[in-house]
């Protein structure tokens, strides 16, 4: 495998646009993958920086994309139909091979709600069963029938639209369990509803992570399950580790054969 990035020695350089075009074009190609020609988004503006180490370069791009006018009603309602999108991409170029490590797009004029997350940021809205609203009575603890930590049993239901009744009922039940286990309180019904939709979306994400893991790990509900990825990253993680080189330290001697 090519040299690993030595985060400690890597600098991030602001780039003039010509050098950005190739990684930006790759990111746009990934973004448009699977779309018919006339429905593809176009790149309007891109800026960014690169961190080089070993034989690799990591491009952190901020790009403005323009979605074409949507004239297929069956598609519009599904996809984020906002015209202009602000995207951040992380594109790794190792030995001339590009890899899209991260893509995060949101409408430029998103309406911010609740915990500062765009209302239409593509979160799966969980429809509650009719007559059930997430008020306090909702959260009387009735442990869900399946304690299965990765809820793989309900995922196939997700593919149907509209979501079937038992998906929502199951989701409400699991969410109640979460709220009680981790002693969550939400200020308003709207916040509770929003958190439940984030929770539902996160369960799908956890299931995907589970499917792609090659170890023996199990993923599912944790005390962070009602946080969006953005909130979790902002509150609990430490992006400085990849951005700043930090003080150089001398290399320790290896341990002689024991």
């Amino acid at each position, binding site marked *: 495998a090519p040299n*690993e990035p030595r985060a400690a020695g890597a600098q991030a350089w602001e780039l003039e646009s010509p050098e950005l075009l190739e990684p930006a074009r790759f990111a746009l190609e990934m973004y448009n993958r699977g779309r018919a020609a006339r429905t593809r988004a176009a790149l309007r503006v891109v800026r960014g920086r690169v961190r080089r180490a070993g034989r690799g370069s990591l491009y952190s791009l901020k790009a403005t994309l323009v979605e074409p006018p949507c004239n297929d009603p069956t598609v519009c309602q599904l996809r984020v139909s906002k015209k202009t999108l602000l995207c951040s991409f992380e594109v790794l170029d190792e030995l001339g091979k590009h890899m899209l490590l991260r893509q995060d797009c949101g409408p430029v004029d998103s309406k911010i709600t609740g915990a500062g997350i765009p209302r239409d940021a593509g979160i799966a809205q969980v429809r509650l069963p009719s007559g059930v609203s997430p008020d306090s009575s909702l959260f009387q603890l009735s442990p869900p029938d399946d304690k299965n930590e990765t809820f793989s049993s309900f995922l196939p239901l997700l593919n149907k639209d509209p979501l079937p009744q038992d998906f929502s009922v199951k989701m409400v039940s699991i969410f109640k369990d979460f709220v009680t286990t981790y002693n969550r309180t939400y200020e308003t019904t709207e916040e509770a509803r929003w958190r439940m939709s984030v929770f539902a979306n996160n369960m799908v994400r956890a299931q995907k992570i589970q499917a792609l893991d090659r170890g023996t*790990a199990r993923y599912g509900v944790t005390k962070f399950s009602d946080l969006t990825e953005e909130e979790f990253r902002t509150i609990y*993680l*430490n992006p400085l580790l990849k951005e700043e080189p930090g003080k150089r330290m001398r290399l320790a001697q290896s341990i002689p054969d024991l």
Partner: protein
Amino acid sequence: PPPEWDWRSKGAVTKVKDQGMCGSCWAFSVTGNVEGQWFLKRGSLLSLSEQELLDCDKVDKACLGGLPSNAYSAIRTLGGLETEDDYSYHGHLQACSFSADKAKVYINDSVELSQNELKLAAWLAKKGPISVAINAFGMQFYRHGISHPLRPLCSPWLIDHAVLLVGYGNRSATPFWAIKNSWGTDWGEEGYYYLHRGSGACGVNIMASSAVVD
């Protein structure tokens, strides 16, 4: 290196702590390492103050993040670390109230360790727990077991969390690192995270470092 090792069973690791809603993992990774180094050199296990680093390490950014290499340097400049009891954790930035005469622990230097995981295991077994930084992909939903994400999903280029290697071994033929996290005992395996060993998973080998106590 020995086939397996665990500093928890040798008294070199304090209890799992909780950084709360603050990006101070870098401070917990460093205090965990210094606690181990002090234990190996002086024989006493002291729980050390992260709040001192949040408040008094002016190079790093408290809850907005920091780097272990800067933190080691700050500990040397300050003159040492106070204990958790004397300078307790509040999870947000405060005015620095460090007093040198209350410092119970000092360090003489800090070193960067090899990126070779076999050498890291040998170093850990001989010299103590290691401060590392990883890509935290999937950790939001991690419950237990040995995590081994696909490399593009957990790229060593996107490191965003600092933790502490306290041991290593194999579980039914799967090699792992035992990692002390700082998200409380109600996350993961009683606060611990198990990550595949030997494949550079999530960049675990990229930023390994340690304090030096002479």
